[in-house]
């Protein structure tokens, strides 16, 4: 089937690549921002492991075409995956599609606009004389494992307002349904609401466990023990219950603020607002632990950061806690050494002119002569480092573990000063 995908988001690229992989003829209208760029120069592709290879392969096999000469092209299916703040552009695209397409088409909306946005798009198409079916599929991709989640989803929500659309959408998604455990079908508005509600729920869980961890610090109890105790209760479960130094990433934060705004606009106070504010404060917690350890005087200190991307598997440093920690350390006159397996180029370009920040390709080189090592992102290679090497090269063996990745007791036995989150 010929599918036209619109957008230059991670979702647009992943969707286009995966639809091509299963045999569709895909044309991607990515927009002006990236059109002239090589794949390797597009951050969302570069930052997502495996994506670049997949796109190359589909282009080579002739099923994936990047086209920006026309605004739209003729296709049986139009898949819209633009940024949440691009609603005006989507509406314009829909008008052009409506005028171009004369046969019955399927439009898939995967943009996270407001609740009711998909119904509005359908109305627009009808106004322009286009008999289109419109479905909404919430964008559930997670940076770091986007391909895997698109190719083998466990759960899909389909927002649909008529039955004919349902069979077309099911046919399109069939190749990705082998491991599907649950296909939930609901109205487009409900599906949009569900997307927001889920995002908010996850944020609240994370915010809450972080708050508990901070409290655990004050009571001198181990949050990991408490977390296991809570997780054993089937009403709560273990997922999204790991304390840390704040959540980041672009999409998650954008949807959260949108949801918080929806509450605001409807005149009700939302706990989300507090969660978002507290999360920004939590992102600096590793800095604060370092600050408190050195009694508020970090001038002239040297600190190593392990892990800069906002989570493992991605090179993106968008809204990452590492950035907040680095900014705070630099402002206090600290020399900052950074190591990250994938995200160093992003750190380099952000701090190009700062002489007090150095990037290291080798994680052990970054810690030489340091007064502290702060683990920010839990990349697998940091989980079991050569402790003797650390002890031998660090000036002060102070470990601030932002992901509770290390065994506290073991660290103490080795002779480190160990500071975790909530333990």
């Amino acid at each position, binding site marked *: 089937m010929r599918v036209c995908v619109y957008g230059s988001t991670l979702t647009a690229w992943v969707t286009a690549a995966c639809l091509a992989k299963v045999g569709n003829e895909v044309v991607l209208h990515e927009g002006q921002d990236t059109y002239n760029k090589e794949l390797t120069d597009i951050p969302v592709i570069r930052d997502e492991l495996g994506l670049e290879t997949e796109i190359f392969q589909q282009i080579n096999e002739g099923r994936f075409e990047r086209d920006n000469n026309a605004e739209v092209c003729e296709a049986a299916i139009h898949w819209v995956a633009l940024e949440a703040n691009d609603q005006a552009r989507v509406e314009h695209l829909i008008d052009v599609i409506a005028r171009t397409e004369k046969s019955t088409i399927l439009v898939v909306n995967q943009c996270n606009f407001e609740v009711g946005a998909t119904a509005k798009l359908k109305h627009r198409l009808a106004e322009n004389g286009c008999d289109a079916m419109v479905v909404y599929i919430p964008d559930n991709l997670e940076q770091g494992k986007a391909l895997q989640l698109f190719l083998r989803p466990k759960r899909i929500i389909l927002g649909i307002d008529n039955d004919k659309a349902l069979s077309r959408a099911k046919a399109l998604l069939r190749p990705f349904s082998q491991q599907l455990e649950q296909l939930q079908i609901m109205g487009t508005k409900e599906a949009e609401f569900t997307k927001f509600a889920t995002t908010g729920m996850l944020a609240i869980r994370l915010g809450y466990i972080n708050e508990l961890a901070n409290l655990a610090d004050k009571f001198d109890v181990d949050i990991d023990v408490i977390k296991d105790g809570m997780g054993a209760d089937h009403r709560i479960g273990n997922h999204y219950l790991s304390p840390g130094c704040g959540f980041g990433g672009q999409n998650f934060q954008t949807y959260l603020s949108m949801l918080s705004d929806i509450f605001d606009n409807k005149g009700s106070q939302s706990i989300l607002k507090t969660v978002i504010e507290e999360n920004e*404060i939590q992102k*600096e917690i590793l*800095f*604060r*632990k*370092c*600050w*408190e350890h050195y*009694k*508020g*005087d970090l001038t002239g200190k040297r600190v190593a950061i392990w892990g800069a991307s906002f989570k493992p598997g991605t090179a993106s440093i968008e809204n990452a806690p590492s950035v907040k920690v680095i*900014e*705070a350390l630099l*402002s*206090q006159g600290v020399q900052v050494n950074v190591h990250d397996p994938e995200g160093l180029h992003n750190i380099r370009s952000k701090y190009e002119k700062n002489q007090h920040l150095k990037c290291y390709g080798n994680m052990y080189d970054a810690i030489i002569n340091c007064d502290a090592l702060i683990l920010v992102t839990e990349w697998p290679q940091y989980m079991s480092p050569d402790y003797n090497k650390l002890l031998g090269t660090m000036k002060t063996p102070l470990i601030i573990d932002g992901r509770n990745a290390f065994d506290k007791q073991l660290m103490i036995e080795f002779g480190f000063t160990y500071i975790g989150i909530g333990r």
Partner: protein
Amino acid sequence: MSVDQSSAWRDLAGHAKKLKDKQLADLFDDEPTRFQRFNYQTNGFLLDLSKQRITGETLTLLTALAEEQQLRKSIEKLFNGGIVNQSEQRPALHTTLRQPLDKPVVVDGKNISEGVHESLLRMKLMVDKIHSSQWRGYNGRPIKDVVNIGVGGSNLGPLIACEALFDQEIQDSHGLRVHFVSSMDGSELSSLLESLDAASTLFIISSKSFTTADTLANANTAREWLVSSSHTPVTLINKHHFIAVTANTPKATAWGVPEKNQLLFWEWVGGRFSLWSVIGLPIALQIGMDGFQAMLEGAYDMDMHFRQTPFEKNLPVLLALVSVWNINFLNIHAHAVLPYDGRLASLPYYLEQLEMESNGKNVNHAGEHIKYNTCPIIWGGIGSNAQHAFYQLLHQGTEPVMCDFIAPINRYQNDRQELKEQHKLSLANCLAQSRLLALGDSTIDNNQEAPNHKRYVGNQPSSTLLFDVLSPKALGGLIALYEHKVFVQSVIWEINPFDQWGVELGKQIATSLLPGLSSEMELPVDSSTAGLLRHILREQVGVG
């Protein structure tokens, strides 16, 4: 020869006698185009003096008085760093504080403008650090609230600017809140502390001498609060929670503020003229450094107007000369300041200090007691609110009062229509009140038949000052206008506007009385003070 013996003074006295029976209503009848003749404009300000009891001749005689007092020479002396504060033998160089960097001011062979700009740069660095949330409290959390502790000039200047410009939007301050406390009794501080989080609160101790009892009492309470809420050693608290703005480094250091947290200014900046210096730190924190610079620019523009414009068209000079006319020749000794804009609610307090502390003097440069009146009683309030309070006295009381009506022409440009209408309503009231005060009910048909208690005699003189919008630049110009007005008056009256010896002795007496409030002792005081002390001691809870 004192000024009241001069020929210009005598001419004015004679002229006043001739005008004695002329009511403002008559002056408007005589000259229907008074507004064209008596309105003056510069830098976006319009000053209307047509509702003052003056004629063209009055102004000619007043400018002759200014010439005779060598005002032009005094203005240059002020700007060039001459000793204009004789009792303390120092210059008063607040105008240098707003001088652009490329305009040097050389005093004793040194370009002091360079130091001014260095201190502004230091202030900018602090503002940037606080705005970017990188100024940290004891536990590493960023500062969210800044409390200015100061009194007099270290309070009123920054306070009026922050209140007046509260709606200036700045992008980069991360919701920083600025508060002010001043009163010696701790009233403001005690209620404020309840709503603050010690970890994210920074105090600015603003005191030129760093010995001001009121300020240090508040600063000590603030520090005790920080130490007890944080369970943190005082050295750490001193380091991260206090900035000192002062001219006395040793005292600030001895109190505990580290030198890197000190912003310094100079002996030649008088307290009530100091908001242009680093004393303006709270202003820069609230409206941003660009806003603060715009305020300096507005003041500088007014400085240039004051320095370069002939007296006949010079707004500060005319404002001062007309007030001298009212005070010394029409015997008016009360002056109401009436802003028609709620954001200027504190302007009357600011001008009370600026005018009364500067010119509330009875000794001239020669050290002699003077026989003419100087600064009148100044008070005021938001005009529209005061209409429900003291305007009764203005309209039907027995005291002649001169008034300054002050208002921006535009407000709420990007706001809802209803608010724009409210501003119009306020302006209509401003114009109505000055009209009624000037002309009385002569303008109303048939009111002459009304009983006396419903009559309005009018003839209360007023000035009206309008400007486009209340921006940092306009506020800078407005304050500089009044500063220069005060200076011109002082030149006419031959008094020193830059000292304040009248506020000293009370402080000493208070210090000597303090022990008497803790235990009964024989103090060499009058029977009234002794009686009051005894009564307080008897009734005081927890003493004796």
